[in-house]
């Protein structure tokens, strides 16, 4: 969900990792890159090789299906969050 959220704007792998790290979510490369490939295989992302600052970089973008999945995850997360708050509120 965090990756789909971050990909509201296009990112290449390293910039995505840094972006997530700066927001407090450290994801190692061994997890992030295979995850990006899985999400792409599921049609939630698309990627293209682009030349940026003289270097070839694979840039990821959220697809239409990714937008829908992101929205649904966001709603689920909010419901879970509310439920946890209610549980925590009722706990003595």
């Amino acid at each position: 969900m965090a990756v789909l959220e971050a990909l509201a704007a296009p990112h290449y792998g390293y910039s995505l990792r840094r972006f997530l790290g700066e927001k407090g979510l450290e994801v190692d490369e061994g997890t992030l890159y295979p995850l990006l490939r899985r999400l792409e295989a599921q049609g939630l992302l698309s990627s293209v090789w682009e030349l940026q600052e003289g270097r070839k970089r694979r840039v990821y973008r959220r697809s239409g299906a990714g937008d829908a999945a992101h929205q649904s995850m966001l709603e689920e997360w909010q419901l879970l969050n509310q439920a946890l708050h209610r549980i925590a509120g009722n706990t003595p």
Partner: protein
Amino acid sequence: MNWLERYTFAVKAHLPTDVRQDVADELLSDLLDERDHRAESLGRELTDDETKALLKERGHPLLVAANYQPRRALVSEELYPLFLLLLRWVIVAIAVVQIGLAAISVLNQPEQNIGQSIIHLSWNTLHASLYGFAWLTLIFYLFGEYINLTDFFKNWKPESLPRVTPQGEYISRTGSAIETVVTVYFFAWLNHIVPQSLFDNPVGLVFSEQWPSLLPWINAVIIASVTLSLSKLLFPYWTRRKIALDLCLYIPAVIILAIIYQWDNAIALHMNTEEGISQWDIGQGVIGPILAGYILVASVDSVRKLRKFRAMKRE
């Protein structure tokens, strides 16, 4: 070639062919970005040791490449309990056969060194068990691939649930596992997939010339039995269809045994001794009681299953 390129090259060697170049290019691009970022923070180029430290943080090339492998286990987690159950019984079945053969060999040659025989037995059991382990792993790997390819679990529908009675009995998984292992082992043994005289053991069986004519029929019955026992293992509850199939299989089995009974000296037990080869014919005197015993067991089991079948019909 610099450190980063050497590292990428090493990772690339372990990547699946279809994504090899793509992943390697992305990895190198990521490493270059990381190196530049660190250099920018330090205000200078990274030293060799600092570059090697960066690579050390990334981990062994084999581990990095493993993250891109589509399936990272020979036996999937869902099938593992079943694999373990069958493996246990494969080893038990192999040990029983090896102990039986060793016992015959020792009884025939009492002057044999017992210590040496035990070492021999242990080695043969280990050797055959590894063989069985390899076959079982291969079968489960292929089964796992089939499950992945067909989305077996995802495509499951509640309509496929069996029609069983509320008091429906479960089939013992241990019983089904033993049945599967023994039947598969017998099939492999009969068709020379595993040696009939089992490695260095001097004990073996010789089949009469009539056997090849009956072998396709025996194989057909065994394959049907294996399919049924696998179905019992995967879906361990009795259904009317399963009972009917189980009972139907007794008919060809009894016919086959009856045909073998009519042959003169259908099988012979042979043994290599220091004096030469000894051979004992297994004729009607042995096959007769086996046939009678089988018919008795089949009859008792059939009565029990027919009762169960009728009870299900009433429901």
